[in-house]
């Protein structure tokens, strides 16, 4: 991961449309010398045609972002198999087989 170093770049995040359950998404960036002006620039540039309900801007130098080198550490299913229901389900079925009893909680869990 890396720390941003541009103080005059602000990334813009919006939530669009009527569905309040929608996540807030990154839409792009603006360049500005001032945080409030950055917000206004983002409003003028990124919410021209859809209704936005949330608009945030964040100075890039205050952000920490992932890089390609972080890809492996962010990949859950290959790295953290013990967190997944499939893994515990297999353990349970194997145990039931050894003990010769019916598995509990469904075959597929």
């Amino acid at each position: 991961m890396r720390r941003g170093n541009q103080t005059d770049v602000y990334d813009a995040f919006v939530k669009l449309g009527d569905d309040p359950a929608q996540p807030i998404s990154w839409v792009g960036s603006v360049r500005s010398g001032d945080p409030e002006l950055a917000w206004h620039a983002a409003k003028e540039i990124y919410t021209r045609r859809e209704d936005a309900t949330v608009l945030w801007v964040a100075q890039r130098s205050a952000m920490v972002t992932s890089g390609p080198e972080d890809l492996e550490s962010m990949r859950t299913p290959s790295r953290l198999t013990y967190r997944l229901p499939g893994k515990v389900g297999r353990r349970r079925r194997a145990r039931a087989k050894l003990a010769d009893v019916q598995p509990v909680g469904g075959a597929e869990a």
Partner: protein
Amino acid sequence: MTITQGHGIDDDTRLAQKYELWDEMPEGYREAAARIASFQALAELVGVLPFAEWLDRAPDFERKQMLAAKIQDEVGHGHVTARVAEDLGVPREQILSDFAEGRSKLLNIFHYRFETWEEIGPAALLMNSSAIVQFQALDKGTYLPYARALRKIEKEESFHYHHAIDLTHQTMTLGTPEQRALAQRSFETWLPRLLAYFGPPDTDTYQQNPMYTFGLKVKSNDQLRQEWLTKIVPVFRDLGIQVDPDLARFDEDLQEWVYAAPDWIEIKRILNEGGPMLAHWRAHIAGTLERNGTYRDIALEGVPA
């Protein structure tokens, strides 16, 4: 004719590998992506000037509002594409000063101004429709920040397109015979310019062009030109504009559009030496840079860290 004919974008292997700003890119890719984004930023920011100078001459209030919206949209497109270029290392100050100081070229269609109000509708319609055809291909390209910027831009271009249709429709339905003749003449003046805007006819080697192999250019000039004619000629006919078959007609035997070839020597001259308005737009951009320089420097100097 070529192997990509009839070959869909979806299975085009050139376009399979996409890139984000932070990805490793092949040799020369970053520079090529920066070039395409900065070229478009300049086109948006200078291309809006012929419209901007009509703002205080718009004939009614609603039209003025719509024209102002279009102008703001275009400047926004300039910002969005300039951000793509800036992230790749080309600051917007450089894009603008390269133009103001004569180091960069401008697309042929932006070397003119509109002489009459009636000229604007058909000219804008030809410009918007060709931009839309270009962007709809380019947004399948391999550089994702640019593709995203284009998808945002397309929504606004769709409004510009309908606004240009409405403007032309107004002239053709309510205008005097003189006004309709001006719209007709605008179509005939601008059609060859826009045909040239798509670039020279495909060569046998266009597929070796790095822009094309990188998947930054998605379709060939001739493919796009044909798609555009298919889309736009019927729209003009519906508006009551006569499309002279010598200018453009669909040839049933060839199954393609045949059109009056642009004067490529003249186009080349305009690109290299400049058309009628180039010096004026350069001076305008140079003046804006200078006038706003003080404020820009103060604003960016006071950037809170």
